[in-house]
């Protein structure tokens, strides 16, 4: 049974150029930058974020729940995905996992990093049940 | 060839004549029923039904054979109840066994919101002549013992509306019963004759072009399913219609009897049992318009997961066949019947997922319209001009399961 817990991060909606810069910036290793869409990122673990751009929206975001996966758990989750996972790492993939809208931040297990499974908070119970 | 079709072998098939009083495009239920009622009720027998393939090869042979009248607005309830009444005497009238069986329909509700709309539906339907009563979960279970009242723990049944008069009939037999009745009266049924265009005299439509030559007509009726826009384009007629695929499937035989038809407003699916004992299961039409009759695994997945919550015994059955029809869905989910604004061209379309149950009423009222030139009161709400005059019918009861 996966334990999905609330992820406290920062949601930024801004022009794609501004977010490209953010994406490319080097962060300390504890920071995870999840690019949901060209104009939309979710940053986990950053203390302060400064972003250029007049219309950038920067808000604290607690609307997602997630769980860092062991290799074994990731393999189990992958069995519930109908679409092929890309080979590149690290990469964010989004789509139905066990029929529930979810996202996975896939990292290379060779470097000892774990992958993160996350979904919108209202789907937490449904996703947990379906993956059980 | 089955026994039933063999009894029809004495039918006279004809070469097309060059002119008819009425040419009907589309040899499905609505086209053939219109021809049948023109011949039997109004003495108009100089009629041709032009079918691109074989009769009943379109949606008339692909639907889920349910006949019901529990719709959401008075106009619809009255119209479909008329159809339901005509169906119940059709065997007697045509002498053909269409395997008509009155089963009743249970419309399940899982939330208070759905309960409210089912109560409203009961009052409205009963007031308009389609007997529908509210039943509590125990009564629903008594009507259909296979029902899991807990809905697999997810969709508890709070109650249901019971539409007592709902029925099923064998769809291809209905088509053949009308074809046979019409042909015996002298109607020409021209199979494998695709309409490639409309003959025009100025604005007026004066006949049809077919691959086998032109046929002129006093009146042309389009009773086409799915491809109606192609016909309308020939007359530069704009229609509020989109073509959507609708899928269904049957399982292998179930040894017991499933009494009523089970339908569900919230899960958008319905289940009935065929005369062979197979379970016939359907759902909503696909959201995107398409002319493709490709069936999909996604549909099977989502549909089976829903119906097995309500009827757990379905888990032990196997899926035999899955198929798709393409249906013309109108912008307000109600049929479009009558004049088109183009002289000489009438239309019956927008039958979406509710065409089979309407065949007798649609056919007989359209025949009356053609014969008398006057729109029968039951058809008045369903004219094409309702969109321009802001009188579209918002009937959520129209679609397959709502």
């Amino acid at each position, binding site marked *: 049974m996966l334990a999905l817990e609330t992820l406290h991060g920062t949601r930024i909606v801004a022009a794609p150029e501004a977010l490209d810069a953010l994406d490319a910036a080097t962060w300390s290793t504890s920071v995870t930058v999840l690019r*949901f869409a060209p104009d939309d990122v979710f940053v986990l673990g950053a203390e302060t974020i400064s972003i250029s751009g007049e219309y950038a929206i920067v808000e604290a975001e607690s609307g997602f729940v997630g769980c860092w996966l062991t290799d074994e758990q990731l393999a189990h989750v992958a069995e519930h995905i109908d679409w092929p996972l890309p080979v590149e790492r690290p990469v964010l993939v989004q*789509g139905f996992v066990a029929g529930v809208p979810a996202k996975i931040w896939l990292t290379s297990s060779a470097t000892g990093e774990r992958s993160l499974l996350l979904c919108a908070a209202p789907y937490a119970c449904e996703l947990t049940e379906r993956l059980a | 060839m089955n026994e039933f079709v063999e009894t029809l072998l004495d039918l006279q098939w004809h070469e097309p004549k060059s002119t008819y009083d009425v040419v009907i495009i589309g040899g499905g239920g609505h086209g053939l029923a219109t021809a049948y009622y023109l011949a039997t009720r109004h003495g108009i027998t100089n009629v041709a039904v032009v079918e691109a393939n074989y009769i009943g090869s379109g949606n008339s042979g692909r639907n889920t054979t349910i006949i019901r009248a529990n719709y959401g607005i008075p106009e619809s309830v009255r119209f479909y109840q008329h159809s339901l009444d005509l169906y119940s005497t059709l065997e007697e009238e045509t002498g053909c066994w269409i395997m008509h069986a009155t089963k009743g329909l249970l419309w399940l509700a899982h939330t208070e919101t759905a309960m409210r709309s089912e109560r409203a539906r009961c009052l409205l339907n009963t007031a308009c002549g389609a007997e529908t009563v509210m039943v509590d979960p125990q009564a629903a279970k008594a009507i259909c013992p296979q029902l899991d009242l807990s809905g697999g723990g997810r969709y508890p049944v709070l109650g249901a509306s019971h539409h007592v008069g709902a029925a099923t009939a064998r769809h291809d037999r209905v088509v053949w019963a009308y074809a046979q009745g019409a042909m015996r009266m002298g109607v020409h049924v021209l199979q494998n004759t695709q309409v490639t265009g409309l003959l025009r005299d100025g604005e007026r439509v004066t006949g049809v072009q077919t691959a086998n030559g032109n046929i002129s007509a006093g009146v042309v009726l389009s009773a086409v399913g799915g491809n109606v826009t192609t016909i309308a384009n020939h007359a530069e007629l704009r*229609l509020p219609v989109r073509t959507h695929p609708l899928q269904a499937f049957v399982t292998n035989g179930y040894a017991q009897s499933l009494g009523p038809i089970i339908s569900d407003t919230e899960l958008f699916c319905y289940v009935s049992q065929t005369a062979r004992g197979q379970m016939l299961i359907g759902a909503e039409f696909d959201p995107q318009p398409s002319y493709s009759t490709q069936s999909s695994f996604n549909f099977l997945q989502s549909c089976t997961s829903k119906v097995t919550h309500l009827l757990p015994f379905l888990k032990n059955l196997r899926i035999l066949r899955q198929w798709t029809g393409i249906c013309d869905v109108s912008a307000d989910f109600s049929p479009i019947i009558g004049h088109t604004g183009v002289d000489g061209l009438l239309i019956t379309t927008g039958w979406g997922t509710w065409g089979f149950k309407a065949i007798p009423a649609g056919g007989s009222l359209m025949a009356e319209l053609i014969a008398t030139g006057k729109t029968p009161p039951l058809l008045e709400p369903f004219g094409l001009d309702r969109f321009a005059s802001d009188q579209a019918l918002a009937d959520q009861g129209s679609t397959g399961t709502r």
Partner: protein
Amino acid sequence: MLWLTCPICGRRPIDEFSFGGEFPTVPDRITDPATRDVDYVWMFDNIAGVTTERWFHHAGCRRWHTARRDTITDAVLHTGIEDATDTVL
């Protein structure tokens, strides 16, 4: 059609997407303004062939994109994040 390629997320099963409708067009031959309005609101081209339409990837990036699809074969010829008003398509 079983799969659609989201320009952001990649190839996904069709049930991850919501259909957003074709681009409405009104034929030039209709000149009366009121009739044009009725046509724009209610009538559909319902093309048997290639249509240009909007799709929303609700299970993934939650962004709208544009697809060109053949409604006879359900083959998807192109998907992109072009703006709805883009006439290049």
